[in-house]
């Protein structure tokens, strides 16, 4: 997994790419989230458009980010969720937890 950070209108976009799974990815993403919180950034959008595949451990990584943000009165929303990722979210009913968006502007607008 790799990531790049962008900021638009006070919202942080994390562009993830590659494979999102267990192991070192979990620590990498957690560090990223804590770093953003230290900088006072609490409006987060995770762009999954370039994630080539994911497993349930990868979904767990997103849950960690979500719960960490929510505990600090922030939020974490998902953008460009592929059919494969949607299938995992639906079967586990996590689609009821995560706000998912197809369009970047809509995702940013949701924070205003």
């Amino acid at each position, binding site marked *: 997994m790799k990531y790049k950070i962008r900021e638009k209108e006070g919202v942080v976009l994390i562009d993830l790419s590659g494979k999102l*799974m267990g192991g070192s990815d979990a620590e990498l993403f957690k560090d990223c989230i804590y770093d953003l919180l230290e900088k006072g950034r609490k409006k987060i959008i995770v762009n999954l458009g370039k994630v080539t*595949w994911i*497993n*349930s*451990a990868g979904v767990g990584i997103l*849950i960690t980010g979500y719960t960490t943000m929510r505990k600090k009165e922030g939020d974490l929303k998902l953008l460009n969720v592929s059919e*494969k990722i949607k*299938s995992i979210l639906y*079967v*586990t009913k996590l689609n009821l937890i995560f706000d998912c968006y197809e369009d970047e502007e809509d995702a940013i607008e949701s924070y205003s």
Partner: protein
Amino acid sequence: MTGKISLEFPSEYKYLNLVDALCNGIIRDIELDPKTATEIAVSVIEACTNALEHGNKSNPAVNVRVLFMWDKNRFAVEVYDCGEGFDYREYMKNIPDPSDIDHIRGRGIFIMKEMMDSLSFEFSDNEGMKVTLEKVISG
């Protein structure tokens, strides 16, 4: 339409993309519908993740073996690891709610059970732990 392909790989996450590529290649070749294809591909990765993590304790010196088998009615995948196995039936009695965000992990078996038509676990001294995933298909 029948076939059988096997793959063996060291217990490292990086090799899961080989499994995914092979699985998707087979699925494309036998022209499964997109929903069935996604459910099989997701479940195979879950089974292999469990095998390398929980079965083989991510020890790269120990391999995970995957066997894909299909005919016009059925797509089956067997995943073998060298672990000590676990009590699947007992686990399923207390399976964590997958929508509970207090649990970071522990959704893999639930996902496989929901996405496949059959999921079974078998342990033997000779072969170690074997997980069998089956899906009814229309060829």
